């Protein structure tokens, strides 16, 4: 049928790979350089005097830039957020996929419509809401409001629509109630979708930038993205320290990605087709 890939094809593939990897590699390499070497002209490709100073600086400067604490905050927020999304979105997605009730189409249409409303519309009013709930500068502000996003519901509904109906019908004839059917039959058959949604929600929350920047204030409560901004302001041209901070934020998600890339990519692919 189709021709074998040519040499030009391989050159392009490799070139693009280099283009992706070089900036990441440069970030990590720089984090092990001295300030002087990070400003050398021409730049050195391998650290001539490799040093852990940058990591020492960000991991130990007690209180000023608690990067480990930020990582912990990010991890806690992203984990709780992902769990909340998976629970509420799978329940709502199941109802919208499999049950008949009044206003179903209207409710689904409104939820779907909000997928296309830009996030900044909610920024100020939700900030005031956080203020009134006493959630400013807390983990709750990072975990809960984001779980109202429409993507998870939409994603789970699409998945449940594709599960054969016979599965539940047999159980329902046997007299199982809806909750039993949902938890014992539907969810075990939805493991891949649940894993995908968990990973996507985790990544979104871990990487979120604008929201934490404005609802968090105390240095020890920040997440990594908000903290990195602080780091950039404090260290301006001390690039090894800034790159060390960026590396601390990047490496956990890259490691996670190596293991779950299939879920992430298939999840993104599926969201597009049905959109």
């Amino acid at each position: 049928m189709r021709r074998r890939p040519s040499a030009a094809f391989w050159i392009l593939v490799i070139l693009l790979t280099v283009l992706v990897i070089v900036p990441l590699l440069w970030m990590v390499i720089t984090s092990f350089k001295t300030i002087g070497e990070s400003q050398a002209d021409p730049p050195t490709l391998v650290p001539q005097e490799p040093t852990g100073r940058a990591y020492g600086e960000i991991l130990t400067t007690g209180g000023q830039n608690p990067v480990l604490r930020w990582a912990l905050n990010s991890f806690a927020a992203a984990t709780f957020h992902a769990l909340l999304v998976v629970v509420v979105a799978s329940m709502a997605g199941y109802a919208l996929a499999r049950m008949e009730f009044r206003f179903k189409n209207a409710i689904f249409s409104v939820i779907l419509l909000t997928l296309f409303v830009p996030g900044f519309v909610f920024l100020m009013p939700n900030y005031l809401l956080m203020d009134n709930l006493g959630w400013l500068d807390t983990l709750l502000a990072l975990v809960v409001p984001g779980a109202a996003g429409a993507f998870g519901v939409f994603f789970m509904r699409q998945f449940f629509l594709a599960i054969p109906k016979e599965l539940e019908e047999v159980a329902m004839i046997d007299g199982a109630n809806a909750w039993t059917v949902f938890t014992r039959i539907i969810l075990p058959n939805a493991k891949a979708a649940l894993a995908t949604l968990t990973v996507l929600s985790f990544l979104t929350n871990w990487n979120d930038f604008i929201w934490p920047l404005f609802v968090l204030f105390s240095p020890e409560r920040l997440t990594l993205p908000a903290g990195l901004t602080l780091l950039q302001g404090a260290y301006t041209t001390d690039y090894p320290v800034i790159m060390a901070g960026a590396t601390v934020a990047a490496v956990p998600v890259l490691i996670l990605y190596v293991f779950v890339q299939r879920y992430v990519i298939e999840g993104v692919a599926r969201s597009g087709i049905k959109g």
Partner: protein
Amino acid sequence: MAVEASAGTMRKRRARVSSGVRGYGRATPYLFLAPYLLLFLLFVIGPAIFGFWMSLHDWDFQLPGKPFVGLQNYKDLFDPLSATAEPFWHGMRATGIFTIASVPFLVVLPLGLAVLLNRKFPGRTFFRAVYFAPFVLGVAVIGLMFRYILDTSFGLLNAFLGLFGISEIGWTNDQPWAFVSLVAVTVWWTAGFNAIIYLAGLQDIPAEQYEAAELDGANTWQQFRNVTLPGLRPVSVFIITITLLASANMFGQSVLITQGGPGDTTATALMVITDTGFSQFRMGQATAMSYLLALCLAVVSIINFALLRERKP
């Protein structure tokens, strides 16, 4: 008429349901929906309405009185003499330039990437994962990383270009280079994401269509032109819509790479909005700006939709 018709379908639907297998009570669907709907009403619908309400007030976060001003905040945005119009339209200009400059690249390059990845070759899954990888990183990491690479004096890019005798370019503090940088970094960051969505669309095009085209003697380019592109129309509409949405939301790249500069040329609309609302505490004006920006985005999206929607044969 419409009401009668919908009542009729409703009755029919209910009859159909009650005759089939239905292992749940009348309240059950709402109970399944309740946890999500509670969040949805509290953090999406409520704020959307309340935000509009705020935009009708002189809503200073720090002052106790928040007088109702009607549409004044919106009118001010069109009054060249007001304090809010100038920064807002500067921001709109930056967001607009960024959108116009980035969307074509973010729509076309990922399509090329997807066509590349749609071929069968050893290591395809690996390269697909590599090209998508930048997207799993947040804008904070991307921003800091490229701030250094693009640095005029210490950056890797200028050092590399220097090998070819090209003198220093102010990637972060000189125009038009600042916009070139922001667009290029955004392409580097998100091209893989759009490519994966295209790829799924490509794999949805039935192989028979290509076979039929080949039987008709169509060459590779003609197949691409007459089978691939029409087959990708729905996916393209989706990609353009979400890319426009992301461009209107543009914030982190400018904050971290160009700090809005040189001057305020790359300070995007969202930077102006957050500055007005959170730094100057004038949230009424800030929400009015948000709604106007959202309206502009809606208009652009609808035009895009009208231009690209499936044409009847």
